[in-house]
């Protein structure tokens, strides 16, 4: 089984998530080649073939050209699977490659076995098993679903060249809004989810965070509703965190949020729904009304 793994490079740096692709290939027990539109000064330590195009000339976000480069490599490698990360780069690029090849695409894979792939659906509440019907298949892999693999070694580099930007013109990046809190460094995070009910209840969650000596986190709906500032958002479009203790209050556990925190050492979830997807990753799920349990816990901790 052969895989062509599409690595990611942004703002002049190789993204760590690229190594998850290696972990995925490893789990599949497949051979791999890597493709990267990046820089030869930022290559992963990897003993296989890297198809390398220069980001300086090809651009970091240039899907039409990147698609061409990938198709080039596909011609040479003839892989069974072309694997992307399910990221803003991957989900934008993968369908283009798949359509050009008329290959099946299976998105946001969380597990794989025997040619069948498991994906989440219905807001992470359910699962689907999908089998491709085509010889070549495009896959995108959920962030954090597969372990990072850093095999070490030196890659064999095959240069790819290409020009043009197709129909798109990349203007530039805009930095994220200034963060007044770096959740990435926090050891304890207590997150407010939509289940807290209303903005007035945020101080209750904050009180627990303080009682534990931690930081306040927020799920996306809570930030969108204006209850907490964006700098506290945990999830794919917020911050990815891995604290020692993560307390999810009234967080249902949508995939995008889980992806941002499931690497935490110990996850305590409080939710009135016993079947909430957060239960999937929680070490302890307390089935209770957040606004009853959290103040009680805070009070007990204060003693």
């Amino acid at each position, binding site marked *: 089984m052969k895989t062509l793994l599409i690595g990611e490079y942004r703002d002049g740096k190789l993204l760590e998530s690229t190594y998850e692709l290696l972990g995925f290939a490893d789990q599949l027990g497949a051979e791999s080649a890597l493709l990267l539109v990046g820089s030869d000064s930022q290559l992963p330590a990897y003993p296989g073939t890297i198809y390398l195009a220069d980001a300086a000339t090809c651009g970091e976000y240039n899907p039409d050209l990147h698609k061409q480069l990938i198709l080039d490599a596909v011609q040479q490698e003839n892989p069974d699977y072309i694997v992307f990360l399910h990221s803003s780069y991957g*989900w934008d690029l993968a*369908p283009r490659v798949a359509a050009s090849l008329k290959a*099946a*695409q299976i998105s946001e894979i969380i597990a794989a076995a025997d040619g069948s792939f498991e994906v989440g659906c219905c807001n992470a509440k359910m699962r689907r098993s999908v089998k491709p019907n085509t010889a070549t298949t495009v896959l995108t892999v959920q962030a954090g679903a597969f372990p990072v693999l850093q095999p070490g070694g030196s890659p064999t580099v095959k240069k790819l060249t290409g020009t043009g930007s197709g*129909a798109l013109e990349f203007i530039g990046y805009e930095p994220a809004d200034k963060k007044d809190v770096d959740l990435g460094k926090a050891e304890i995070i207590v997150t407010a989810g939509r289940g807290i009910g209303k903005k007035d209840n945020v101080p209750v969650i904050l009180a627990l965070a303080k009682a534990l000596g931690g930081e306040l986190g927020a799920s996306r709906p809570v930030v969108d509703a204006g209850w907490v500032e964006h700098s506290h958002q945990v999830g794919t*479009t917020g911050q990815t965190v891995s604290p020692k203790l993560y307390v999810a209050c009234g967080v249902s556990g949508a995939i995008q949020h889980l992806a941002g925190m499931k690497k935490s050492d110990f996850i305590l979830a409080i939710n009135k729904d016993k079947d909430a997807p957060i239960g999937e990753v929680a070490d*302890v799920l307390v089935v209770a009304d957040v606004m009853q349990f959290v103040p009680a816990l805070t009070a007990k901790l204060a003693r």
Partner: protein
Amino acid sequence: MKLLVCIKQVPDLESRFKPNTEGVWYNETDLAFRMNEYDEYAVEQAVQLREKLGDGTELTVLSIGPDRVVEAIKKSLAMGCDNAVHVQDSAASSKDPWQISSIISAYVKDKGFDIIFTGMQSQDRGSAQVGVTVAEQLGMACTTTIIGFEYDNGTVTAKRELEGGIKAAVKLKTPALVTCQLGLNTPRYPTLPNIMKAKKKEITAIAVGDLLKEAALATTTSFHPPAKKGGGIVLEGDVGELVDKVIALLKDKTAVLR
């Protein structure tokens, strides 16, 4: 100018899902349906553009599915779309993203749409493929996950939302397709006069067989709830007792409490 917005009707995500008899998708009994949340932003953006461009612009909304999707179509018409296309398919959920894209592309081909709006993904299947695939099939410029949209004289300027809150600005020339992310705008609540006007707007029905000529490229073999994780402890009961249990667990399993 001709604009198109593609929408999908999905079940309300608060529902409890059970597999259907074939075991490959959800059973529709007892499910409440609504427009895919991402598509609401797409419709709103399309309507805003249509309002800005004024006379001479036509905005069509398209949806594939059984009769119940007409409700979502009507909502889009009430928000401001001019007319609609309902691709009648009682088994829409059994089609894979390639087929769905092919249906849309078959309709769109030669109609001369300048801009197509879609949601970034659907809340039920969530494969995030259809929008981009349609663009590829039709050779349209395309970008995804937009949280900012501007149009001026043949050029779309979009802002993409990347991980970590970073944004990327991109320009594309029409004909273009954009997939919309949550937070792109604030979808309007339809006013009553618009709801009433919508009742008179045309909904063209097309049988899916007239448009679909493609086989599925992938097959769903099973739809099931996730396997119960062995390691997790579920605690229920009196709040006071729960608090004590949790503190004991935190002391035991983490170094957080002393």
